[in-house]
């Protein structure tokens, strides 16, 4: 039987999705205007996963969003600070040195965001230890949610992470987005087994597959089940199958792709998580076209205002970035820079 949701919940999901899509397109624009001097990994086409996950977690949970869940950053950080960071400005969240990928905040009163690593699979293994330690320290009602893609899942250390999770039972959810592409390599050349989560299951974790990741409610339900299960000490995997529409980072060539027709077809409606959810909301009488248009105009104006303010980029300041106190927590035993 189809699950029923409150109007309020469905609209909050929709607003989240619409805002994320707007953020993504504005970041693309910023790339082509030459405003972003680092990599902008685009979640274009797979926005449903992050919004669904954000609806399933608590504020006390820890999130490691990696490449394609930037909504996590602005939902927990200040959007203005994030966009200034993306533009490499001194008044960005980390003085323009982290962009989004290396943002991290892990103190007790922090945003509870764990940083990505440019080498894949690494932080997956790190965060198994992090989740185990939080539980060991008595915080057994917290969950760590870890994003990965099928590319990361090919790294040996991913298996080490899954094995350690299955052995030591941290409160952890591995979201694996199988988006059909690992940089320029299609899934069929990346993995003989197209069900990536089966590899994690072989290590002893329970796994669930969402076959259609453009369905935000299916994503939400699966992730919510996983988060609930993890909170009771059973680490598990949710594999979301979707399709990355952009290149690995925006600006890289993308026209070589053999599935480019499928991308265009998806963008026309049936495979677009936003249009698909709009159709659902219309059919269920939750919202009308006027609401969608109003929301679109609203988030567009809001993003434009933030980006305009951020466009006044303050160049990086040496003293804000290069200091012995940033390299060593006990700088007196750290030697010279």
């Amino acid at each position, binding site marked *: 039987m189809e699950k029923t949701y409150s109007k309020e919940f469905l609209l909050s999901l929709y607003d989240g999705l619409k805002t994320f899509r707007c953020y993504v397109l504005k970041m693309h624009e910023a790339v082509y205007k030459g405003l972003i001097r680092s990599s902008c990994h685009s979640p274009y086409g797979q926005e449903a996963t992050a919004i669904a996950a954000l609806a399933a977690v608590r504020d006390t949970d820890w999130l490691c969003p990696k490449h394609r869940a930037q909504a996590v950053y602005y939902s927990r950080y200040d959007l203005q600070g994030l966009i200034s960071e993306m533009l490499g400005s001194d008044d960005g969240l980390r*003085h323009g040195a982290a962009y989004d990928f290396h943002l*991290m905040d892990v103190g007790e009163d922090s945003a509870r965001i764990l940083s990505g690593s440019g080498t894949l699979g690494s932080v997956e293994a790190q965060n*198994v*230890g992090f989740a185990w330690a939080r539980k060991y*320290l008595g915080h057994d009602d917290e969950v760590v949610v870890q994003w990965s893609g099928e590319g990361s899942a090919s790294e040996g250390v991913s298996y080490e992470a899954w094995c350690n999770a299955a052995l*030591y039972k941290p409160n952890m959810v591995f979201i694996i987005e199988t988006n059909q592409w690992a940089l320029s390599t299609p899934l069929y050349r990346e993995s003989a087994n197209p069900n990536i989560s089966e590899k994690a299951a072989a290590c002893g974790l329970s796994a669930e597959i969402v076959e259609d990741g453009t369905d935000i409610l299916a994503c939400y339900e699966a992730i919510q089940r996983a988060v609930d299960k993890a909170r009771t000490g059973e680490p598990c995997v949710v594999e979301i199958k979707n399709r990355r529409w952009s290149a690995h980072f925006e600006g890289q060539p993308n026209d070589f792709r053999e599935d480019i027709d499928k991308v265009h077809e998806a963008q026309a409606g049936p495979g677009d998580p936003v249009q698909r959810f709009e159709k659902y909301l219309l059919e269920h009488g939750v919202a009308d076209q006027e609401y969608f248009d109003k929301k679109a105009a609203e988030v567009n104006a809001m993003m434009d205002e933030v980006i305009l303010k951020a466009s006044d980029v303050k160049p990086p300041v040496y003293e804000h970035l290069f200091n012995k*106190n940033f390299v*060593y927590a006990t700088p*007196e*035993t750290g030697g010279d820079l």
Partner: protein
Amino acid sequence: MKITSTKAITLAIQKEMELDERVIILGEDIINFGGSMGIFRGLPEKFPDRCLDMPVAENGFVQFGNGCALAGLRPIVDLAYSDFSLMAADAIINTTAKMCFENFGKTPMPMVITMANGGMATYGSTGSGCNHAQCVENIFANVPGLKIVMPYFPSDMLGLMRSAIRDNDPVLFLYHKATAGRRESMAAKDLTELEDDEYIIPLNNAGHVIREGSDVTIVALQSMIPVALDAAQELEAEGIQAEVIDPRVLMPFDTETVLKSVRKTGKLIVVQEAHSRGGFGCDIVAEIAQAEDMPLKKPAKIIGALNTPIPSGFAECMMMPHKEDVIAAVKALQ
């Protein structure tokens, strides 16, 4: 009274575990073996909830340790042979060393990574081949964010291990596998002092002149200390006074102690078990050569292992530096 390196390390860890319950141990063969070199022997029985056996997957469990440190624990992660640190190079270099910077100094990474460095044949034992006998200190010395401790004497193992555990940054603690059972004779009162809760040797300014002399400075890294001391003794019979320095800590390196000595002697020899090319000795010589008052009066000399992979068995000692090499180098400078 005597204390071995292994016992000294165990004692240091035990003391710190008693004082701070955030200190935990993880690695391979911890529970049944006390670590493959035995440096944790007895601790799993004393602290059963704080000793974790990990699967044979160094990268994964160093990352596990990274996560523990980020979350507020103070893990000691054991890598057994230092060669295995290369299996965990991604964890150590790309994560451990970077976390403090990623969070702009707001998050400490208090962890100690222990490993047995070097080969067995240095003291006449048999070598275990090209993947179980390497010196790795120079590989990690090029990574900002790490600290590297490499002591030789058991009392230094103890004092520096305690410092390493208390430090808020990641410390690679390299003990030497051939010296694990080495005994240091100590007076009973000195042994009592080691048991003291405050016996601790700071990581900075750790350079130690272990033999005074005025004719030549020999900086000896870890396993090469007895080689240098033996050479110095023979040279003394010929009227040459060699000063021998044990740096004890490579990062942060105590340049001042070496510089002070070379200002006196004008001559510098570094003897290391690592291959002579690209090793930490190059860094030491470079530090002295770049000093404003450049005190070298003769060319500096680095004595290290041959630049070849390390053979197994007795052949290992044929490629290692010996006291004769040190004596010949000193004489060539006279």
